[in-house]
């Protein structure tokens, strides 16, 4: 199947229903289908499996996703909040030859394209408001103007085989190169079927969209709402941190966010008893959900069923779910259970030698798992192993299971951590800082502040002869890395503590920084 068909079915049955609310406007299924058709038509000549999409919380962002899928391509979201260098790297790695861009990001694209390798076809979202000088930005590239009068909305999407890609996201990579995670239509289909089996949505539901397109939980927002012929309400960037008024005004019935957003709302006392009586479902994913926060949300949304969802990008959006009961929420170290695996997938909790263990790394296989990283056999080899004929993905998450079969997240196996719900490989920050400062020994660590939030501190061994300014390092990171990967502070050392094997003693380094942090507070 092509996941575009979830949208197409709803459009065929409910063309006049609201499909999307974004930027203060509502669009019907008909209007969204028409916009998607124009973009699908404009990209149809691309030779590559993926098309880029530089758009953000706008009609173009959603019509772009649909148009690219309709044309039988997978989309690669390009987040305008990322630095130009990173966007260029993604365009190069994905081998994009075509991209759709929202007009307001044309100047950004011009600077991105200074660092790209291939000639690109650029499709501006709105030829009518294109300024005269804008096509001139792109000397070596071809600017294609989509049809202004609309195009015939040819029947359903071009049917794709189950192996075709729906989208590709890039996650943080330890050598400084992001890893491409290509997801097939079949991967997404398994997720959508599981969610729609677990939860009873209706065309009257109003779903939130809190996630950027570069976060795979946005696929849930779009395709769970559209597969139910419901309406998707995209929250504006500036309201996103704490959108109480938005929820009430739009009578949102289905909420989905990282727990951090809920935590901010709690701290601002927005989660008063029965604050959100219209809410029927509330889902959380992306980082550990605290027991106390789940209870608080239940009080604020007493008519809502709560779910805690878990899953790495490589396993497509989410691969397990815990139905949070009104009483007796299961948790470990204050973190709510991540529940049971979705149908169509298999798991194994393994120790170092691949034997089943009570507590160990979670390995996954099945319908939601990617086959491999995009053009990256080394990383694929690291992350996947074949055992007794089954190919397992190593999540790097240490979990355990209770006697009912419910899973609990224990901790990350390596130094990969989550900051504001985003996955961060600390090695990647070290790599960037090390290259900038010309020093060998750089270690970024995570310390926990008094508010239980994670903070990045980059430790640098500074030779006495060298002058390095902390502010310059942070400024460089800001220009090179996404905001959530920029260290909060820099700590200079004359040497790092070592363990017996002569390796940097990370635990000791962590203790030193944590102590200093606690003293400051």
């Amino acid at each position: 199947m092509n996941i575009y068909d979830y949208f197409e079915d709803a459009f065929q049955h409910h063309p006049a229903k609201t499909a999307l609310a974004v930027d203060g406007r509502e669009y019907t299924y008909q209007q969204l289908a028409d916009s998607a058709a124009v973009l699908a038509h404009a990209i149809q000549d691309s030779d590559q499996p993926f098309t880029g999409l530089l758009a953000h919380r706008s009609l173009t962002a959603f019509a772009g996703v649909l148009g690219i899928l309709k044309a039988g391509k997978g989309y690669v979201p390009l987040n305008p909040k990322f630095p130009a260098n990173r966007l260029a790297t993604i365009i190069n790695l994905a081998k994009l030859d075509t991209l759709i861009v929202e007009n307001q990001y044309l100047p950004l694209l011009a600077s991105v394209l200074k660092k790209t390798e291939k000639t690109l076809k650029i499709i501006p979202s709105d030829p009518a408001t294109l300024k005269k000088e804008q096509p001139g930005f792109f000397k070596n590239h071809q600017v294609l103007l989509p049809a202004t009068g609309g195009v015939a909305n040819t029947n359903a999407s071009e049917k794709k085989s189950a192996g075709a890609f729906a989208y590709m996201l890039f996650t943080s990579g330890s050598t400084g190169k992001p890893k491409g995670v290509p997801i097939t239509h079949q991967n997404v289909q398994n997720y959508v079927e599981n969610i729609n089996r677990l939860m009873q949505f209706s065309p009257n539901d109003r779903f939130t969209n809190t996630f950027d397109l570069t976060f795979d939980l946005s696929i849930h927002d779009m395709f769970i709402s559209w597969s139910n012929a419901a309406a998707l309400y995209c929250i504006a960037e500036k309201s996103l941190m704490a959108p109480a008024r938005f929820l009430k005004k739009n009578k949102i019935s289905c909420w989905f966010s990282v727990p951090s957003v809920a935590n901010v709302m709690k701290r601002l006392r927005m989660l008063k008893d029965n604050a959100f009586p219209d809410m029927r479902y509330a889902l959380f994913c992306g980082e550990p959900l605290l027991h106390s926060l789940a209870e608080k949300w239940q009080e604020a949304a007493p008519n809502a069923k709560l779910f805690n969802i878990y899953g790495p990008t490589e396993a497509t959006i989410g691969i397990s779910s815990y139905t949070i009961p009104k009483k007796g929420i299961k948790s470990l170290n204050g973190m709510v259970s991540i529940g049971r695996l979705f149908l169509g997938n298999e798991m194994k909790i393994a120790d170092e030698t691949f034997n089943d263990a009570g507590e160990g790394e979670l390995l996954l296989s099945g319908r939601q798992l990617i086959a491999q990283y995009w053009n990256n056999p080394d990383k694929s080899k690291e992350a996947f192993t074949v055992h007794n004929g089954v190919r397992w993905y190593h999540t790097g998450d240490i979990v355990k299971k209770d006697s009912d079969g419910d899973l609990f997240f224990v901790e990350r196996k390596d130094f990969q951590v989550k900051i504001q719900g985003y996955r961060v490989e600390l090695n990647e920050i070290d790599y960037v800082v090390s290259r900038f400062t010309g020093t060998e020994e750089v270690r970024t660590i995570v310390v926990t502040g008094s508010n239980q939030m994670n903070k990045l501190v980059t430790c640098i061994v500074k030779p006495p002869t060298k002058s390095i300014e902390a502010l310059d390092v942070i400024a460089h990171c800001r220009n090179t890395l996404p905001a959530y990967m920029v260290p909060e502070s820099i700590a200079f050392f004359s040497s790092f503590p070592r363990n017996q094997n002569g390796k940097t003693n990370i635990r000791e380094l962590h203790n030193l920084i944590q102590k200093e942090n606690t003293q400051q507070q």
Partner: protein
Amino acid sequence: MNKNNITDTLFSLMSARLEKLGVSAGDIDKTESLLSQGIFDSMGFIEYIAEIEEAFDIEIDFEEMDAADFTSVEQLAKIVASSK
């Protein structure tokens, strides 16, 4: 307390943060979100709100608001003035 005094206090409460970032108060756009200007992340902003409430001895009611309603200096000054 008049509005100028409130604004002065709002700036003084973020002075340590500004110093750390190497930003002077004059560079801040009072009508623009402090988050989109890179002064705070969401958790830093929450701490800033807590300091504002303590300094003015008020409890702000955010229940009917979105973040877009209270993240600029000007918006905060208005909210503080009406909460007193």
